[in-house]
């Protein structure tokens, strides 16, 4: 009797049992997520931070010990270390809540980077032969080359931006408690976007990062431009999200599948209504084009980049682009390869317009943040060349380009922050006069970052341009590459104009020296070192990115 009952119950129980979760697939994201929540709690526990910090550390220690006992040693150690970073920071910096927050967030990001590396070594590429792409959470996540590289870029960007922005936020008195948690959530959203393997996950990840960014860009509540930036970004972003969602819905209608590989499989079938799928593709392109600021969907970019607090701008410019392109790559290369004849020319056209438009409009700007905003638009165009190449080389070149671009951009914006702190307002070309004489190191780092953005040899940007151009030429898109070259020359002109103002003009005695804090100099120095290192000896990282062409398809 009991035996028969059991025998009927067993399959039922098996059905009810929760699905097993491959924790390793999301391991790097868990740390920042947990830290974001704990930091919010710490903010609530004003004055009694240890009440939150100590239990959190104990939980982390418990998890870490359990992990180590399961012979997952490195992640266990990382969890314990990050868990204890918070109470340590509370004790070390009493009454300096924002420093505690920044420090703990940085610890979480370092932990996430370490876990990304661990994940690469242990899970993704256990043998030297390159990445073995894996699905996780019933196919909702794809743990592959794109995911790995997106993680690398966004975590690194956030880690660089944190120290650069710390003093700046404090000076503008916008170092509120939600900054670091929101930043961490944004990063998690971006990393999730890099792994999203179905339309729902993709959309949710995009919204996580977008919503957090809407808030972050409006941090400076008293600054009208910041308010405007936030509102504009929010309204236009919501419209873009709606369009994207509509496109996804149409794609689902056409293919009956939400999972990207499934869509890719069924679009080629004769039973699939091609027109509906194409319409879906078009709307998705518009929606995602907004997020990565492709012309003509870029109109929000200059205003938002200018109005948002500069460290947020740096982060948006660097990391949002990397995450957005991860989604772009996955959508076009995994879900829509069958419609290649449709999207390759469209994207190529958009890339051409974007590159030229961004470069030409940047020529007539005077505000440094606006110049860099238009340069960001131009760079989106270059990265699209890699996507339109529709090949492994194109994929890896795009990922690499985004990494080099992120580093150069953060370096440039970091230097802008130092100037902005001096001026307490917008930074125009005039403010740069003679900077090469008054603070040669800062001017040198800014010039180096700009050279990297311009793609001059011995900087990371050169290798980036080299690879996307090569992918474009190999794919037969020589005309697009020639347009890229023309826009490079135009862009070089305004980068040079900035460099010339710094080095070729005499300083203005009325303007004080730029404010360089320890954190800022740390951040921009690391960025500058990476620019040179990746420009002169890119082999180790290039080898890594070469393996990234392995995708979950």
């Amino acid at each position, binding site marked *: 009797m009991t035996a028969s009952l059991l025998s009927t119950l067993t399959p039922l129980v098996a059905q009810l049992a929760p699905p097993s979760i491959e924790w390793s697939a999301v391991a790097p994201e868990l740390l920042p997520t947990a830290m974001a929540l704990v930091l919010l709690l710490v903010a609530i526990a004003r004055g009694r931070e240890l009440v939150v910090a100590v239990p959190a550390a104990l939980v982390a220690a418990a998890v870490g010990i359990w992990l180590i006992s399961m012979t997952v040693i490195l992640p266990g150690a990382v969890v314990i270390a990050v868990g204890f970073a918070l109470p340590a920071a509370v004790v070390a910096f009493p009454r300096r809540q924002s420093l505690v927050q920044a420090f703990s967030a940085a610890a979480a990001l370092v932990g996430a980077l370490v876990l990304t590396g661990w994940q690469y070594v242990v899970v993704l590429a256990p043998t030297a032969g390159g990445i073995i792409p894996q699905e996780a959470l019933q196919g909702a996540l794809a743990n592959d080359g794109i995911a790995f590289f997106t993680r690398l870029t966004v975590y690194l960007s956030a880690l660089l931006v944190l120290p650069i922005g710390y003093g700046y936020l404090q000076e503008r008195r916008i170092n509120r408690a939600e900054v670091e948690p929101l930043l961490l959530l944004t990063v998690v959203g971006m990393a999730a976007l890099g792994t999203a393997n179905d339309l729902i996950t993709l959309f949710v990840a995009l919204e996580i990062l977008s919503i957090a960014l809407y808030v972050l860009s409006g941090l400076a509540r008293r600054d009208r431009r910041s308010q405007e930036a936030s509102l504009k970004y929010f309204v236009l972003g919501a419209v873009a999200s709606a369009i994207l969602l509509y496109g996804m819905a149409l794609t689902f209608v056409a293919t009956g599948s939400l999972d990207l590989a499934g869509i890719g499989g069924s679009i080629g079938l004769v039973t699939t209504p091609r027109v509906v799928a194409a319409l879906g593709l078009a709307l998705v392109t518009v929606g995602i084009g907004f997020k990565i600021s492709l012309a003509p969907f870029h109109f929000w970019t200059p205003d938002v980049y200018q109005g948002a607090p500069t460290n947020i701008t740096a982060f948006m410019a660097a990391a949002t682009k990397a995450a957005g392109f991860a989604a772009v790559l996955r959508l076009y290369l995994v879900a829509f390869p069958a419609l290649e004849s449709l999207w390759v020319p469209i994207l190529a056209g958009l890339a051409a317009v974007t590159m030229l438009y961004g470069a030409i409009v940047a020529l007539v700007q005077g505000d440094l943040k606006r110049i860099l905003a238009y340069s960001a638009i131009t760079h989106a165009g270059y990265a699209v060349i890699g996507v339109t190449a529709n090949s492994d080389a194109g994929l890896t070149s795009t990922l690499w380009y985004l990494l080099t671009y992120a580093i150069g951009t953060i370096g440039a914006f970091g230097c802008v922050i130092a100037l902005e702190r001096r001026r307490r307002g917008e930074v125009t070309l005039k403010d740069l006069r003679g900077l*090469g*004489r008054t603070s040669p190191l800062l001017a040198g780092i800014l010039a180096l970052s700009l*050279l990297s953005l311009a793609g*001059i*040899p*011995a900087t990371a940007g*050169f*290798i980036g341009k*080299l*690879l996307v*151009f*090569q992918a474009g*030429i*190999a794919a037969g898109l*020589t005309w697009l*590459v*020639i347009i890229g*070259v*023309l826009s*490079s*020359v135009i862009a*070089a*002109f305004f980068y*040079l*104009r900035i460099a*010339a103002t710094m*080095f*070729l*003009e005499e300083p203005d005695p009325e303007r004080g020296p730029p404010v360089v804090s320890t954190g800022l100099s740390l951040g921009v120095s690391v960025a500058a070192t990476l620019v040179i290192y990746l420009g002169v*000896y*890119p*082999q180790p990282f*290039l*080898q890594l990115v*070469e393996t990234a062409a392995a995708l979950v398809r």
Partner: protein
Amino acid sequence: MGIITITLAIPVLGALLLGLYEGDDRSSKIIALIASLATFVASIVLLVQFQVSDANLQLAERLTWIPAIGAEFSLAVDGVSLVLILLTTFLTPLILVASWHSITDRLRGYLAAFLLLETAVIGVFAATDLLLFYFFFEFSLVPMYLIIGIWGGAGRKYAAVKFFLYTLLGGLLMLIAILYLYGQTGTFAYSDMLALSLSVTEQRWLFLAFLVAFAVKVPLFPVHTWLPDAHTEAPTGGSVFLAGVLLKMGTFGLLRYALPFFPDATTEFAPWLLGISVIGILYGAIVALMQGDIKRLIAYSSVSHMGFVVLGTFALTTTATSASVVQMVNHGLSTGALFLLIGFLYERRHTRQIAAFGGLAKQVPVMAGLWLTVSLSSLALPGLNGFVGEFPILLGTFQINRTAGVLATFGAVLAALYLLWAYQRMFHGPLDTADNANTSDLKAREIGVLVPLVVLIVAIGLYPKPLYDLVEPSVDRVLTEVADGADAADGGLATAEEDGS
């Protein structure tokens, strides 16, 4: 680590040392001078190790650089690149001594920029990997931009940007061509790309892309317009380096890359290039005649003289093409010396208008004597170095294209006219103004800078054989490659495959 790498590395290490060590101006200058002299010594060792009779690329060194994309840090020299490397390492210490007192503002940066530039240029001449070549080729823009832009004259900002953008555009078009070739070979190695057999249409486009990059550098008419500005605005040392070495990157590139890579296109376009060169020779000479600023005059004379070099290159005969390599060196020496003299004069008078001078020969006899010698060398007087380069070029051109030869000869005549006329107006006549009467003659340091140049000018003029011996085998090799490649394309696929292997 081989001797080429050492030659390449010494200047950049010197620059690094200057960047890290914040000494006073004097010690910075001494560091820079020692680094440049050590580089010169290293290049002499390179010359000693070089097998003169061997036409191939020698003393090859290979280090892994970016194997992920098939790029190697590989260096080697043939006679042509060796000669140009020697020219570079010879001129750099002279330039540093010449501007010993004239640069006081941000001196460390100035010295470091020159050393970086030296490394970049040696890299261009020695690279046997196209990515490495391109790397150095484009990187050389940055220090030169800074030299013109920071330490230049009144219109320096415009001149520096113009220089940068012109060369960048040309260089990027070449990058596209290099990447196209890379698409077929999968590596950036020179020998692999040389072994490709390309269709005639491909060759035409790729040749044009390379040509644009190098023509801007040379500079060939009509893309020469950056040169007068850059030359006029650059500080003396910058002008000397620009004329002496940087322009040669263009003619060197044509000979090393454009010709042997695209033999059919080369033979097809050669008549056109002869024509363009002749236009450049005459145009540069005529415009030089009309200049009131002596530095601008010499700048335009560079356009004319470099036209001779390209003319000789595309005559595609051993005599003319070897002579054009020799002429690269000659132009570097004599125009470099002229720019130095102009610089010394400018330091004394702060003007470069020919009209402001007159009768200086009585007041500054040493300067006048040197000026005349160098001018005569530049206008190709027999017995001085200009002649042994220019005459065979004209001879070779005359043999293959009579019209071009005759027209180019007029350029040589015009050179005599503008150089001697300028000399006459500046140094002869009455010593009428107080400024002229108070001009002081060259100091020992300045004479010391010029003497090595003049010695070489005379030595090459009297006995050019060692120089020709160095250059000729390598030029022959390139011309054989051009001829074989062109034949192979005519003879069909079978021969092409033989050549390719």
